[in-house]
């Protein structure tokens, strides 16, 4: 029997204009929020492992660290097919950095002792791409990122990683922490029954004390990364528009442009 934990985060909806609150140095999260779209790929990967029988999965558990509103992300995760969910929420967590979040998640995972932990490639807000790796480090398990194909053979996973220069094929033995790339699958949409039933699936809400997590290692108290300032990215120079009136002429212009810049 195998248990899979999927790490999910609540993020501002992609339709909301995102801003950093310069007084706290944190993201302004006042707008509408949603489940991190990248995490739906991790949920889908877990469900495909379960449904295909590739792993003998008896439970998929969605886990989040986040403010009270994050229960909605958990409802979404269970409506997509997770069996139950765990929510770590505590005022002392506010302002946690990647390492702090990774530590807290690792402690939650230890309580569950799963065989496999799946995460998204990045959050849509913080987008440090690093939480999965931090979790693996704290657990002392192998950690893989950008996995876009998963093949199971007993306790061994053969993973294809999308790297800058091509594809890596890596074998790991469970337990492991795997962050999946968004090319791994096309996430499903929830069915009516799943949507209606989402609030009825078990949701465990824990404080730091409940989970016996060291408060000095998370939040403002434990953070090692500190936001110091921000500035607008430099404005890009306007591009040159070439109207295609006569194709031969257009090609000539493009070739001349590239030639000027020693690109050909």
């Amino acid at each position: 029997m195998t248990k899979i934990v999927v790490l999910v985060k609540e993020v501002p909806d992609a339709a909301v204009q995102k801003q950093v609150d310069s007084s706290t140095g944190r993201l302004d999260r006042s707008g509408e929020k949603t489940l991190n779209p990248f995490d739906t790929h991790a949920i889908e990967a877990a469900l495909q492992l379960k449904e295909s029988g590739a792993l003998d999965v008896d439970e998929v558990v969605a886990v989040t660290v986040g403010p009270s509103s994050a229960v909605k992300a958990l409802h979404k995760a269970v409506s997509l097919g997770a069996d139950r969910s765990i929510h770590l929420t505590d005022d002392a967590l506010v302002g946690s950095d990647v390492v702090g979040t990774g530590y807290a998640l690792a402690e939650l995972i230890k309580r569950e002792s799963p065989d496999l932990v799946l995460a998204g490639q990045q959050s849509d807000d913080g987008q440090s791409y690093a939480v999965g790796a931090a979790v693996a480090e704290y657990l002392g398990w192998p950690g893989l990122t950008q996995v876009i194909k998963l093949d199971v053979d007993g306790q061994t996973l053969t993973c294809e990683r999308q790297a800058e220069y091509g594809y890596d094929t890596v074998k790991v033995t469970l337990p492991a922490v795997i962050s999946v790339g968004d090319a791994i699958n096309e996430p499903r949409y929830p069915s009516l029954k799943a949507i209606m039933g989402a609030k009825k699936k078990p949701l465990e809400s824990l404080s730091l004390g409940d989970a016996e997590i060291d408060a000095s290692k998370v939040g403002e108290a434990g953070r090692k990364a500190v936001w110091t300032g921000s500035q607008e990215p430099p404005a890009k120079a306007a591009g040159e528009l070439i109207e295609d009136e006569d194709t031969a002429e257009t090609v000539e212009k493009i070739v001349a442009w590239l030639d000027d810049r020693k690109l050909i």
Partner: protein
Amino acid sequence: MATRQRRLSESPIVPVTDERRELRDAVAQLVGRYGRTYFQDVVKRGEQPDALWADLGAAGFLGAHVSEPYGGGGGFADTAVVIEECAAQGCPIQYLVISPTICSTILDHHASDAIKEEWLHGMADGSKRMCFGITEPDAGTNTHDLSTTATPHPDGGWRINGGKYWTTGATVADALIVVARDADIGPSGKPTLSLFIVEKDAPGLTIQPLDSALTTAEKSFTVFYDDVPVKPGNLIGEQGKGLQQLFAGLNPERIAAASLANGMALFALEKASQYAKDRTVWTQPIGAHQGVAHPLAKAYIDVQLARLMTMRAAELFDAGSPAAGEAANMAKLAAADACLQALDQAMQTHGGNGLSLEVGIADLYFLARMLKVAPVSREMVLNHIAQHSLGLPKSY
């Protein structure tokens, strides 16, 4: 960070629950994989959007409002969201107003357990379809004049004789629900109606196409009934109670028609606003000209008002409120008018391109125009409101 444009249908002005927001997003995700061109291709080829229908069924979206054992458990407000979002994604499926709406609702409320068991699961999961025939050439809006008649047969069951027209989707339905006059006058001494299920391959049934201007997948038909046998089990509910039983389906039908109109209007307004932002004819985008912007803004306001009344009507219906009928009628009228206005202005905004099939608005026009007369005409809605809301004398 990913950014996306908020869909007009997501406006928080129209009341939502967490579940209904998720449902709308799920429908948008499902139908978005098909899109307007898929739908146009299906219509052009004279086919049905079967793949889309099957996906909607598999997700449970075709039976949201039917009783839980048959695949539902939600309310009609959920089905209204499904119908509206399909249309807002460029796939206005007329059949949604017929099979899951009018037919499933009547069966769920009135049919025997055996009929429900046989039909409702399939209608909710998309594997079975029913169409609905009430309109007759010589009866019109006045259902008291229906002449299609059900005569009891000595061997049990009935024989149906007569004819219906405008029966939509008859050739792709597994069965028809037929409204017929009872041959024998009941104890009240007045003619009564009953509802029957007629299987699609019943002997004596002739189905002829009725050409219309609509560019929809579902075609309409004239259906002749020549001594068509109906087995005893295929009477819906009680004999002679057809008219009362019909009411279960009429309010949902109006709410569904309104939702279809609202969705098409949102689709058109979304396209038109994008075009008005992108298209520059002089020095600014055309949307900067108030002659273009104001009519779009006004059309949007009317669509939002119609959406509010539609959702309200659905909520009243789900709560079993007697005010549901009044609200459903108002919603249907407001939605049909607002949709026509929105389509017209969206076409105008596109200039000549507004008439192109690539833009995909002009070919919605006749479906929207139909909603001004069917399932209930504008005049009959106004009659109802004048009489029941304002207490004016009955006019017919």
